[in-house]
């Protein structure tokens, strides 16, 4: 993969472009989609690079599937342009676009054998039958189901149907493969296996994958880059690391993994350090994250649960801050103890405590100061409703 894509430089939300080094396969230029009064996609504006595994992540109704359907050609944008290989395809019907889709329910043709399903696209393109046989056989090999060619789709399990749907789309060597929540119908074990399988197949064929999901873990596991969407907006585009560690909005911070979010006010900004005031009157020193913060502005302090430790445990590096709290629950979860605490202004926080944090010393009701290292905190450049402060997580 291209270093640019995996670089540490945070992409500043909208208009995030893949810097010129990689070939752009798909470009969305201010794409808007309205259904009557309802705006499904407010403004999708990004590039997808050749060979990239790109995910659109967000809760249901965020516009991710509509965006995918516009790329496929099933919907036409109300405004803006979609470019495929530099050519405007905004008005091109789906059967004339060189992209293929793996549908949520697979949409395999029930009256055709697995072989004929996979061969369908090639036969539409009038590929000679000898080549059809070879390419279909190759693809069934890649998805590891060569012995199922003569079966009917409903004689296959969900996971197998999934692979056939994948083979049927990939056999046409599309410019991009569009996947609409393809793992949604599978059970957890199979889903995790298929995640790795998808990643392997993508590396093997080298085709751009555009993956739509509401499952943040899935997106983090597989993607080179993720676009986090909500209510028709693209909140942030970045690598999984960027999105997890440097969210640009409170929504992204809460949707990706679990986060403790606290409303704070900027007091001063010197060098790379910002000093903020919390609601309880304490002051914390937080890294600026490469942004400049105006004194007096309302921002959000984010601390991931694995960064929060009780004051009696050792802190890695320089201490960043400390909050007096009361323990409200302790749940043993194997590798970590999930410890929920309440601050004196009533916000709930959660800490994942490892054995080195000595969680045995805590009990429900006991008072403890929760602390974090200087690097363990991050400022989200967006105010948060004090009501919504505390633990936020997607599911």
């Amino acid at each position, binding site marked *: 993969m291209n270093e640019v894509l995996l670089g540490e430089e945070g992409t500043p939300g909208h208009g995030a472009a893949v810097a010129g080094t990689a070939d752009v396969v798909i470009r969305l230029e201010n794409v808007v989609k309205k259904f009557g009064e309802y705006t499904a996609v407010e403004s999708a504006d990004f590039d997808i690079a050749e060979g990239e595994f790109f995910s659109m992540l967000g809760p249901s109704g965020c516009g991710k599937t509509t965006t995918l359907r516009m790329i496929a050609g099933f919907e036409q944008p109300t405004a803006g342009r979609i470019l495929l290989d530099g050519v405007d395809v905004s008005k091109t019907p789906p059967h004339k676009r060189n*992209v293929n889709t793996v549908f949520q329910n697979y949409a395999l043709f029930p009256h055709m054998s697995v072989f004929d399903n996979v061969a369908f696209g090639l036969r539409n393109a009038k590929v000679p039958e000898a080549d059809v046989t070879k390419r279909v056989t190759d693809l069934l090999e890649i998805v590891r189901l060569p012995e199922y060619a003569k079966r009917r789709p409903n004689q296959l399990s969900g996971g197998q149907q999934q692979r056939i749907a994948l083979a049927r789309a990939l056999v046409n060597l599309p410019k991009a493969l569009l996947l609409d929540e393809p793992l949604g119908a599978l059970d957890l074990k199979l889903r995790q296996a298929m995640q790795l399988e998808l990643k392997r197949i993508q590396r093997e064929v080298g085709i751009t994958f555009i993956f739509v999901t509401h499952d943040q873990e899935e997106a983090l596991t597989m993607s080179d880059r993720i676009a986090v969407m909500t209510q028709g907006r693209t909140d942030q585009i970045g690598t999984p690391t960027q999105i997890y560690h440097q969210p640009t909005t409170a929504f992204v911070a809460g949707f990706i993994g679990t986060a403790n979010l606290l409303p704070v006010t900027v007091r001063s900004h010197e060098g790379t350090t910002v000093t903020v005031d919390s609601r309880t009157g304490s002051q914390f020193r937080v890294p600026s994250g490469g942004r400049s913060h105006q004194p007096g502005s309302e921002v959000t302090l984010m601390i991931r649960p694995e960064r929060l430790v009780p004051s009696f445990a050792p802190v890695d590096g320089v201490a960043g801050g400390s909050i007096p709290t009361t323990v409200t629950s302790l749940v043993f979860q194997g590798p970590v103890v999930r410890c929920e605490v309440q601050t004196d202004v009533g916000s709930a926080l959660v800490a994942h405590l490892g054995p080195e944090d000595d969680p045995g010393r805590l009990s429900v009701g006991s008072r403890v100061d929760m602390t974090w290292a200087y690097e363990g905190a991050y400022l989200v450049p967006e105010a948060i409703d004090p009501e919504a402060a505390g633990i936020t997580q997607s599911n």
Partner: protein
Amino acid sequence: MVMSEGVAPPYLSRELEQPGKTRKGSTSSQRAGSRWGRRILTAFACLVYLYLFLPLINIIVFTFNDPAGRYNISWDGFTINNWLDPFKDQELTNAFIRSLEVAVLSISIALIMGSLVAIALARYRFTGSRGIEIFLVLPLTTPEIVLGASLYQLFLGRKVVFGFSTVVIAHVMFCVSFVALTVKARVRGFDWTLEDAAMDLGASPWRSFRKITFPLILPGIVAAALLSFALSLDDYIVTDFTKGEFTTFPIQVNNAFRVSFPPQVNVLATIVLIVSVLLLVLTSVRSEKGVTR
């Protein structure tokens, strides 16, 4: 349940107990009784079937009759000559062929129109789609005599020449409803993302209809064709109003009965019966295969 929890007034609880007692008392005799009951039920079912099929059996049996006079009514001796020469009665045969022509033509038209209506109704919601659905049922519920009379009036008022074409128009009219309703039942369960998938894989809208949609709704269309074939072939009332000098098989049979009663009527009727039963068996076997595969 609620009443038996002690709070129910005495008259209610007594009432509740009563059926329980009788049930208890009858359980021993019920087994013996049920054996008899089952026998009676079987006998009764046989009688019902006999009632349903006696006319058919009668028709088939009398194809082998060798009638003494012109009326094939009483049993006069066994022969297979009627089967060896089923088309002996020229007029009857001609009418039979005309009936087939009417049926084939009107069904072809009705299948195309009805299937398109069904697909449109199942696939799209548009203004007036509810109204169309109600109008579709009307020809099925309207008495045939009303349909026939109104068509007669309509054609007469327009000075249309009665004959083959008016009969076909009339048959198309009532067949369209049957086709549309039968095909709609099949199309309703159709997964339209399959069409999306086909187009996504490079098939033009027409090709995806031909390769995907059509084969999948074909069983519905075949069922509709069989149903309308039966309807068209034996229609009497509407045909009688619209036929003019033209005659179809049912009309000819009725006409012939006034002067003679040839056994060929039975033979041709039996042929129609056998063909329709065969088609029925064939389609049900096919659709069962479709379910299991």
